């Protein structure tokens, strides 16, 4: 099959190559042979694959090549002034006020002045900015960055590797449990449209545990193309709660990838809430490398206007006796389009696997569209796997019941929508975040919460 061979390059595809050529010498780690080689290889992968389009099965419903007409230049840090007001405007009050170790990445750069780096260090974590780490990457980071996996056949991942400029490298030493969650705040900037390519690497050593919130918001930049990758390595008996909140401006193109590998008897819980971006694609890859571990990957997305939100998930059971759970809820209004693709792979030896997956969509308007592809690929016999998917409009009976109890229609609708997405919030361990997300859904609906 010659589908992956490029017949010709679109303007955007060429511009992305040019971005690299132009920035090559100034990208972090340019002087380090390992990093330079890594970037070259990744660029070659991208050049071979081109931008994904709908003939690529995993991108069937999100034609990135058609969507991306122009490529914005790489962001240049200008040191935008950011105070409590800016944060609140970008993320909403509840998330902005979330009590945590803050790490703030603005215009593709980790800002020391806004981040609690020393406090985190005092708490026992090893933390360094990506830019600094790439100048002379430690051995473990080299290994992580050059692992096999989606980075070899995912053009978006490859582009990230070729162009990554900002982010944090965080290492939780053996047995460390942080007293507060970590809040990674990603903001755009205020100037002209730009491309931001960030990479975070989180490594939890044996027995370590932490809650990590990643939030993405806008300061009013006139256009943003974001490519954000977070790699998570979870050691034996370690636990990471990983949460993402994305409410970027509605012109934004947001491409996010989470890549997690889980050791033995460990736990990884991932949760994502999206209300922003014109085109958003969240890819989550979870792989089990040790027995007796579990993962819960869930999320909600609330879309309206002409927003397009794609969640693509691959859970790979490579070893026996692991448990995976997925629950996604999608609410779509106006002309919004929601996509859920979930794939559970059970390798030949991964006996005693328990995998369950569910995706539900609620369509609020005649013109909304939901496409779903929940896949099971199973090569072991002693497994219990299942998936479900539903799509429909609001249940008129429920609505009637609430109205018969004296609730006005709008309020009754809002209540039902909140209940629909609210089910996913139960997956969040942190109470403050659970409440914050209830607030997010209320905001989206335009109702007051008591």
């Amino acid at each position, binding site marked *: *099959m010659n589908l992956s061979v490029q017949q010709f390059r679109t303007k955007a595809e060429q511009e992305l190559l040019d971005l690299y050529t132009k920035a090559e010498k100034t990208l972090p780690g340019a002087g380090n042979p390992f990093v330079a080689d890594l970037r070259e290889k990744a660029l070659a992968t991208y050049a071979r694959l081109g931008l994904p389009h709908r003939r690529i*099965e995993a991108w069937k419903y999100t034609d990135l090549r058609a969507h991306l007409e122009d490529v914005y230049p790489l962001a240049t840090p200008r040191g935008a002034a950011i105070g409590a007001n800016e944060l609140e405007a970008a993320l909403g009050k509840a998330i902005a006020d979330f009590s945590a170790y803050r790490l703030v990445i603005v215009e593709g750069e980790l800002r020391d002045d806004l981040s609690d780096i020393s406090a985190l260090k005092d708490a026992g974590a090893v933390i360094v900015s990506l830019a600094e780490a790439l100048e002379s990457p430690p051995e473990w980071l080299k290994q992580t960055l050059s692992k096999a996996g989606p980075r070899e056949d995912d053009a978006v991942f490859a582009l990230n590797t070729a162009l990554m400029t900002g982010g944090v490298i965080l290492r939780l030493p053996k047995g460390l449990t942080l007293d507060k969650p970590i809040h990674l705040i990603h903001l755009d900037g205020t100037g002209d449209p730009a491309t931001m390519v960030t990479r975070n690497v989180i490594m939890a050593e044996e027995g370590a545990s932490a809650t990590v919130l990643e939030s993405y918001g806008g300061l009013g930049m006139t256009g943003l193309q974001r490519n954000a990758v977070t790699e998570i390595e979870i050691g034996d008996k370690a636990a990471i709660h990983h949460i993402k909140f994305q409410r970027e401006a509605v012109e934004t193109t947001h491409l996010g990838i989470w890549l997690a590998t889980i050791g033995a008897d460990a736990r990884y819980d991932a949760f994502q809430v999206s209300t922003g971006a014109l085109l958003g694609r969240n890819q989550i890859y979870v792989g089990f490398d040790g027995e007796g571990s579990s993962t819960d990957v869930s999320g909600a997305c609330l879309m309206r206007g002409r927003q397009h939100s794609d969640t693509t998930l691959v859970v790979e059971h490579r070893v026996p006796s692991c448990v995976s759970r997925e629950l996604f809820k999608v609410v779509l209004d106006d002309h919004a389009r929601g996509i859920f693709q979930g794939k559970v792979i059970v390798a*030949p030896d991964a*006996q005693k696997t328990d995998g369950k997956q569910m995706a539900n*969509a609620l*369509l*609020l*308007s*005649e*013109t*909304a*569209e*939901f*496409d*779903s*592809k*929940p*896949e*099971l*690929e*199973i*090569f*072991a*016999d*002693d*497994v*219990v*796997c*299942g*998936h*479900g*998917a*539903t*799509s*429909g*409009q609001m249940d008129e009976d429920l609505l009637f019941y609430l109205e018969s109890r004296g609730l006005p229609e709008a309020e009754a609708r809002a209540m039902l929508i909140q209940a629909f997405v609210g089910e996913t919030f139960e997956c969040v361990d942190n109470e403050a975040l659970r409440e914050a997300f209830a607030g997010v859904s209320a905001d989206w609906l335009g109702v007051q919460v008591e």
Partner: protein
Amino acid sequence: MPAVQDTVERVKEIDVDQYKYGFVTDIESVTAPKGLNEDIVRFISAKKDEPEWLLEWRLEAFKRWLTMQEPEWANVQYPKIDFQDLYYYSAPKSTEGPKSLDDVDPDLLETYKKLGIPLREQEVLAGVQGAPKVAVDAVFDSVSVVTTFKEELAKAGVIFCSISEAVKNHPEMVKRYLGSVVPSTDNFYATLNSAVFSDGSFVYVPEGVRCPMELSTYFRINAEQTGQFERTLIIADKGAYVSYLEGCTAPMRDENQLHAAVVELVALEDAEIKYSTVQNWYPGNKDGKGGIFNFVTKRGDCRGDRSKISWTQVETGSAITWKYPSCILRGDGSRGEFYSIAISNGYQQIDSGTKMIHLGKNTSSRIISKGIAAGHSNNTYRGLVSAHRRASNARNFSVCDSLLIGDKCGAHTVPYLEAKNASATFEHEATTSKISDDQLFYCLSRGLSEEEAVALIVNGFVRDVLQHLPMEFMAETQKLISISLEGSVG
């Protein structure tokens, strides 16, 4: 329990390598030279004495086919097919249509006897009042040799004949409907079929008529290295009803055989078509050598309001199955159903499923798919349910269950759901599991042997679908299931 006992006994009789229907009947065939080019297409058309328009249609399809690429998206692996190394036409030598069964080549009758087609019995049956009647249009390789019950069907106004006959006797109808559901440009194999189709069945049930009997085609691939390109066209006029049965077996041999059939169903207003298949082609030997390649395009068009098309299939044979019987729910209030049992053992590969395309208002569809994978086989369900903008109140309910027997096989589920209409309600559910130890233990504790227990549990697993098969097929299917799973336990 007697049925189970029966299946178990049959399992004992049959060894994996002793495929029950593996024999070759030696009849002289008129065969076109190997390979495919425009001349072969002309040769086939001329052999069948076809009108100019059909030849043109074939040639156009052939030209189109030359520009197409073999699809590779299915989850199946096989050596590339050399399309120039196949025979595209082979007909039994006695081409003058026999007047009765007595005129039929005795060798041929012997073949049918081995297959268990009760042609003679049916003549007897026909005289029995109230007995179920089945009309058989037996296809021997490429040309319909004998058609029974024609007269009784004619009385009801039902046309049931081979496509070639239909082209001669009802050209206006063939011209109107051929390629209207599966266009000749549809996909690689459908286009190939359009260019070189040999023969097949044609059914027309007139307005308001309930077809008085179940129609049935048994066909087998016989001459070595002959691809069989069947073309079936069934039209149910307003308010008509027809149930069509298709069952197939093929002789054992080493070389892979290509089978690329096209089935088109058209249901006009208030019409109903029930299409049942039991497919038991040679799956290859225990090392995965040989076996049939089954690349079939089956599609039904619910063209009229309140029409209904129901597909029921039992897939136990073929080395590779690539088949998606679909329903286009065009008429308002139309309904599509798909019931499937797909069993793979040995090195079989199945990539099968359905498409329910909701175009009209208040359309509904139901999918029940049961996949059973054993041995080294791979069994994929791939299905699409889509509701278009206009399809308000579309409803779909899908269940896809897979059962794994043994740790060398794979079961995959790839459903696509596309809702472009808010009032469309889709529900999809899928599970994959092995036979539960508890169930097995319970059966064993009741004194069943392990094989009996597995046969019992599997028959229970597929019961939802079995119920939708016509009576004639149910018993046969139960036997097939146990034969197909032979050697998968212990």
